[in-house]
């Protein structure tokens, strides 16, 4: 349960950025494993890529792209917040980051299942 003092947009943007970063860090070893297959073992790579025909894996890919998008936009939001002249539109930026992430992940999902 989210404690009462954390129920505001910027804290939620923070935790989304943190969790997406951790999830992507967990994914990285698998990413490098497949990259290694691409370089050294074509048969193993083909076998691995067959998994992507399954809908469940497609959905997992959607999740992955969502995490990437949410982390990218969250990072851009942070850089804008800390490196550009301050404005009171942080909450709008946070909302835009989430909306942009959904748009990118959603469009990827639609193109993957079509």
């Amino acid at each position, binding site marked *: 349960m989210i*404690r*009462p*003092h*954390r129920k*505001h*947009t*910027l*804290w939620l943007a*923070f935790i989304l950025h943190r969790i997406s970063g951790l999830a992507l860090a967990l994914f990285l070893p698998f990413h490098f494993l497949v990259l290694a297959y691409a370089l050294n073992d074509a048969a193993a790579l083909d076998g691995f890529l067959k998994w992507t025909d399954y809908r469940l894996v497609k959905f997992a890919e959607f999740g992955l792209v969502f995490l990437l998008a949410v982390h990218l936009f969250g990072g851009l939001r*942070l850089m804008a*917040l*800390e*490196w550009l002249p*301050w404005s*009171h539109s*942080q909450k709008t930026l946070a909302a835009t980051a989430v909306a942009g992430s959904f748009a990118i992940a959603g469009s990827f999902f639609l193109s993957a299942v079509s």
Partner: protein
Amino acid sequence: MKHVAPGGSAQFENTLKVSVWRSDTDGYQTFLVPQQDSQTVLDIVTWIQQNDDPTLSYRFACRVGMCGSCAMMVNGEPRWTCRTHVSKVTQNGGLEIAPLRNLPVIKDLVVDMDPFFDKWVAAEGVFEPSLTRNDPIEVADPTTVQRQQADAAIECINCAVCYAACDSVAADPDYLGPAALNRAWSLVNDVRDAGGGPRLDAISGAGGCQNCHSMGSCAQYCPNDLNPTASIAGLKWETAKSWMKQGWLKW
């Protein structure tokens, strides 16, 4: 429906169920407090102490939102209790009142503010004059961007609401915290101040402004509508500029 307040003989039309943190039992004690119009959370605590349990300890002074001494956790959120209307924060017909988060508890609702003010000193939050009394007074032009940034950060009443709201403080007890850094930012922008170099060193070291994760809880809860997150972002930019000038460009 009428209730009888525990320990008191008076009867009241409407009562509020108030859970108050007690340090002797390390838990909450429930009181029934009569409800009144325009009642503040500080009124509630005062009523309990004056009518029900005189051993209850809490801290207040001005009761008009100037001194910054009456902040407490109200239903899990840090608030200045003298300016917080009960009608706006009551949940399920009750209140839960606890001492401020992130500070050691002395007794009941009273916290030790020493760590909070020690960090003001550690952040070089003291004005360092650039002139002596024999020099003519230096005019601070209120129309400059720098002065406006200093003014935007200067109205802090040291209530520690931001400090209690901050999860970075909770995670790292050495972190200077939003109030001290906000104070440093107001001095960084004060053209009359001469403490810039040491102050920048103080706020860029361990526990300094880079520990802020921009969660924004300080700005969310500041009762004076200050924005310490913005001040800390400004300090981050100043330290980055200083690093680029002193280190990175020479690299």
